[in-house]
């Protein structure tokens, strides 16, 4: 046993890489359909949007890039679908410089194709990307047109029916930010105290721990923490709106629920490696003491 563990400690790391590859790839190709349990922070986010009235406006900010898209894309899609089904109007912006706009365009195009009844400029609008995230947020708190004079296609905001009556973030009923890095935090620290607009965040799993402090202080209405949060949201959506099943039942499309299968196997493999590594470490320590 000891000999095996010592050999394990000297194992070529390419074996670990192979295990990681297989543990992520196999569940994506062959979904396991493992159950997802929901947490309070995700339920609060879901229920907040469920309680909104038709015609209310949600600002959806794409504050992430391709590096975290598998985590953040499903969140943005789920929230946008919920807006569409609840007849909420949504304004899309992107503040992340490394590809945020492209991801926003892709998700908007996908949702517009899924809900052909949605009218651009009436039910939703895409304002595009603006550099200088925190300054843009501050400006939007007073005057959205000051930060985004036109939409992504170059149409002045004054000519967009949806934007009539929405001069600043004070007239927006919710900000949802799918975020990586610091930009999500700025919505809470810069916009919420000044404009009073409720905030829901969808951070990557690695930055989610930070936001528990804001949840506890009541500065956040809810949170979708990483891919698990997105999978929980998908579960809540499917339960509350059975018609959503068509978007999540497909075996071809990537969903957070499917991604969680890979993450579960991956966590198992990593925990196993940590356990074996520690076992081998203790045995080698014991031997050294003798």
């Amino acid at each position, binding site marked *: 046993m000891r000999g095996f563990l010592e050999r394990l400690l000297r194992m070529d790391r390419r074996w670990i*890489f192979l295990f990681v590859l297989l543990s992520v790839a196999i569940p994506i190709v062959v979904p396991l359909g493992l159950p997802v349990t929901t947490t309070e922070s995700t339920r609060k986010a879901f229920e907040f949007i469920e309680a909104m009235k038709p015609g209310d406006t949600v600002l959806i900010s794409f504050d992430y890039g*391709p*590096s975290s898209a598998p985590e953040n894309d499903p969140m943005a899609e789920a929230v946008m679908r919920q807006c569409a089904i609840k007849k909420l109007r949504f304004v899309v912006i992107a503040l992340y410089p490394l590809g945020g706009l492209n991801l926003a*365009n892709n998700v908007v195009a996908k949702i517009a194709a899924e809900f052909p009844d949605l009218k651009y400029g009436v039910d939703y609008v895409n304002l595009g990307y603006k550099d200088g995230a925190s300054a843009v947020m501050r400006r939007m708190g007073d005057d959205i047109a000051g930060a985004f004079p036109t939409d992504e296609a170059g149409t002045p905001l004054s000519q967009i029916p949806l934007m009539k009556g929405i001069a600043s973030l004070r007239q927006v009923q919710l900000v949802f930010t799918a975020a990586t890095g610091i930009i999500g935090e700025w919505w809470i620290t810069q916009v919420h105290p000044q404009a009073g607009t409720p905030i829901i965040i969808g951070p990557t799993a690695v930055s989610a721990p930070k936001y528990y402090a804001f949840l506890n202080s009541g500065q956040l209405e809810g949170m979708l923490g990483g891919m*698990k949060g997105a999978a929980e949201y998908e579960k809540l959506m499917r339960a509350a709106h059975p018609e959503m099943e068509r978007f999540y039942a497909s075996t071809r499309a990537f969903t957070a629920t499917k991604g969680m299968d890979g993450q579960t196997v991956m966590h198992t493999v990593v925990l196993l*490696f940590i356990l074996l590594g520690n076992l081998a470490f203790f045995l080698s320590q014991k031997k050294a003491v003798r």
Partner: protein
Amino acid sequence: MTSEFGQVALVLCFAIVPIIGIVLGLNAPGLRSRGPVLVGVVAGIIPILAMYIPKGFVSGPEGMGPRLDNWLIILAGFALLLGIVNVLQNNFKKIARRDSGWFFSVVLLIGLFVTGGFGVYGALSKVGIGFNPDGSPTPFKYMTDWFFQPLQSTIFALLAFFMASAAFRAFRARNVEATILLVAAGLVMLGRVPILEFLAVPFPFLHAAASSGSQALGKLTEWIMDVPNGAAQSGIIIGAALGAASMAIRVILGIERGYLGLGKGE
């Protein structure tokens, strides 16, 4: 006082005073830092005043505060330009010297010029960087969809491999602190995913026990994240905010001058 006063005050503070400072600085190097410090002081004070003074010339829609926010957005654009200039300088130097890995600099610069060129073309042709009028992707969008996005995703995905390898080699219970960290991390990793259900897949008689065990672990994980983690995060955030506030006060009072990039004695 009207908004125009605010406009004049801003122009005075951010244009005329710095120009005077530069002119004076040419003859008297000792004065070189005074102008930028003054600009820093005013730029730091105006947003604070705008929060507390409900007067049009400070916090009104055309007042100094919102105007400064607009300028900040423009400045952020220039910061991007500064970054591009820096990338060009460094990589051209590397290629000229034939430093190790100079070929990667060539690839980087080609990527920069081609992608940037498509972006500028999109702006000049008024088509933008998304889709053409016929619904086909613009060259810029093609580049981002088929080059930039897969490359960024690949680089980030590599982390999973190195993280697993590092966890195996370095995550050891060497002392009490490391053991606490290891146990907490293990519990959170277990509780965030349905690991027990996964392990119970081949054993149907264990499914019910695995499900209730998984829920209990989930609750424990939520408690760890909510209470000890939430409290620690609050402390870190408040501490960092106090540090940032004290640094801001030092800049506003002109005590902190490191951002000027001047040598000693200036």
